């Protein structure tokens, strides 16, 4: 028995943990921008951590349930309401057939994740149910969720109503958000002064911020080191011979506004990159709404690996709660 989408919200899409293995063909890994939040939502409702759920940007959908199930809402602080009654986030909520889920306004963060016991059971495309809208792949017919869709639900495993994840294990978002960056790639293209300034200044998330990439504004333009343009690169000082882009890499077209590539990244292109956001901070980017303040913090590999370990430890602590 499906879930009926009465209203899709703003940019609601079906996401799981993505489809690795096709980036060399320009098909990105995709999946939940905030991996930790999706995993937690699935753990709460007793699903595999990689089951498909809904990613909702800035506002929630209105969903009508045709079957009893358990749901959980994590990630952004977007309070769910069942038949109009406000419910806690980061908590397994029992839902009866016929009930309607709506949402209050966004209090903090940017993207909420809705997991449903049994998971959303659309067909897999290249091993994943994640919606990659640019390539019309995954989800429902390769597109975000629309009004009137019926979401097929898989078979639930165990009853888990009442599970909750304590505040201490949820990630808080500070202002300005601190995004840790390992300088590299084409870092040598900018002057030392410019590089220092990039890390000193406070930036703001620009309106062009989506699953492909996050643009930042408000800082100073970069100064480039003089060079003779390499053959094939193009004449702008920010051009390179088209190359692969790492997830989390920071490109700065014409030296003006940095763009961090995210889960639906373009796999390559002709702009220099000055470094890469560490894997532990990728989830956080997905929780920054437009105009949120952010600072870039210079770190080395050792710090990146330590942060990655801390992130893994926190997930393990959540797993241990319900093991």
């Amino acid at each position: 028995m499906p879930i009926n989408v009465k209203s899709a919200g703003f940019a609601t899409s079906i996401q799981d943990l993505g489809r690795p293995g096709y980036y060399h063909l320009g098909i990105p890994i995709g999946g939940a921008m905030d991996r930790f939040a999706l995993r937690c939502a699935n753990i709460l409702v007793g699903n595999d951590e990689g089951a498909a759920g809904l990613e909702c940007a800035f506002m929630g959908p209105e969903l009508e349930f045709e079957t009893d199930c358990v749901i959980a809402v994590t990630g952004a602080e977007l309070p769910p309401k069942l038949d109009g009654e406000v419910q806690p986030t980061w908590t397994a909520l029992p839902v009866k057939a016929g009930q309607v889920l709506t949402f209050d306004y966004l209090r903090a963060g940017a993207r909420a994740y809705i997991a449903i016991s049994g998971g959303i059971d659309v067909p897999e495309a290249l091993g994943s149910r994640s919606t990659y809208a640019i390539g019309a792949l995954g989800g429902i017919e390769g597109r975000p969720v629309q009004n009137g869709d019926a979401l097929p639900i898989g078979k639930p495993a165990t009853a888990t109503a009442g599970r909750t994840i304590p505040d201490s294990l949820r990630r808080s978002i500070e202002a300005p958000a601190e995004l840790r960056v390992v300088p590299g790639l084409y870092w040598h293209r900018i002057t030392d002064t410019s590089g220092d300034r990039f890390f000193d200044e406070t930036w703001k998330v620009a309106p062009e911020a989506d699953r492909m990439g996050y643009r930042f504004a408000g800082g100073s333009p970069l100064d480039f080191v003089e060079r003779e343009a390499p053959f094939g690169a193009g004449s702008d000082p920010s051009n390179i011979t088209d190359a692969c882009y790492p997830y989390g890499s920071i490109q700065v077209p014409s030296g003006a506004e940095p763009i961090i590539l995210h889960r639906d990244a373009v796999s390559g292109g002709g702009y220099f990159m000055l470094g890469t956001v560490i894997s532990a901070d990728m989830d956080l980017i997905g929780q920054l709404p437009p105009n949120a303040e952010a600072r870039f913090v210079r770190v080395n590999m050792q710090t990146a690996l330590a942060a990655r370990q801390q992130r893994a430890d926190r997930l393990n602590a959540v797993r241990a709660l319900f093991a």
Partner: protein
Amino acid sequence: MTARFSFGADEHIFVEVSEDMSLEAFFTSLSMTNAVRDANIPGITEICPANASFQIKFNPDQIHPDDLMTELKRLEQTAQQAEPVLNTRIIEIPVLYQDPWTHETLMRFRERHQDPDSTDIEYAARINGYDTVADFIEAHSGAPWFVSMVGFVSGLPFLYQMVDRDRQIQVPKYLRPRTDTPKLTVGYGGCFSCIYSVRGAGGYQMFGITPMPIYDPEQKIGYLQDFMVFFRPGDIVKWKPIDRAEYDDCVAQVEAGTYQPRIREVVFSLDEFNSDIDATNARLMEALNAD
């Protein structure tokens, strides 16, 4: 050529074979990525060859970044001994140059262009020293092209012109990228041609459109049933200029499921190409046109 290695934080290693584009740089990148694949190093999750560089994505929980870096640098030596020879295919791609759809789009984004008073192809012809657009089309479609990268989005091929460097077409990208490009636009930026596999944003100049789909997520089109992406690095392409009637006919064949691209198996040797470009291209064309 000595490669430059850099970490892309804790999950990527980026390797630039050369700042400049060349087929030598492509072959070095290709043989290095082949060596990495053959080495079966645990922890590597993606191997992405590009024009003159490549990228490895890895799981640092399985292999320490420093250890993988050491391993990759060691493989650089193995790769340098590889012979630059490819068993590949040559494909004929029909192109309707100066089509109405890219024309409508380029007119909408004129204020983002270097030369708002001419079309993209008129501009490209002029700055490359061609008297007429017809001469430019002849140059663009005269010699074959080498697919030196697949990516950006959904199987988009970057193509490198197989002529002497002084004859290679070069065109800057738009001043500011467009928010729209028709699906299957034949584009140009830097020294690369491309085919936009899907509709979307883009910064390359727009010269025409092909009726031949190169990406089909539903895998309904006959020649895309085995895999949804048509191109792979190392493919060789020959553009075939067509008129509107031929274009409409191709589209009808694609829709009817009867369209078959002309594809022939060929061997490409970089040494042969470098010693005689025209003779190599003539041999490739002979293979393409053989029945």
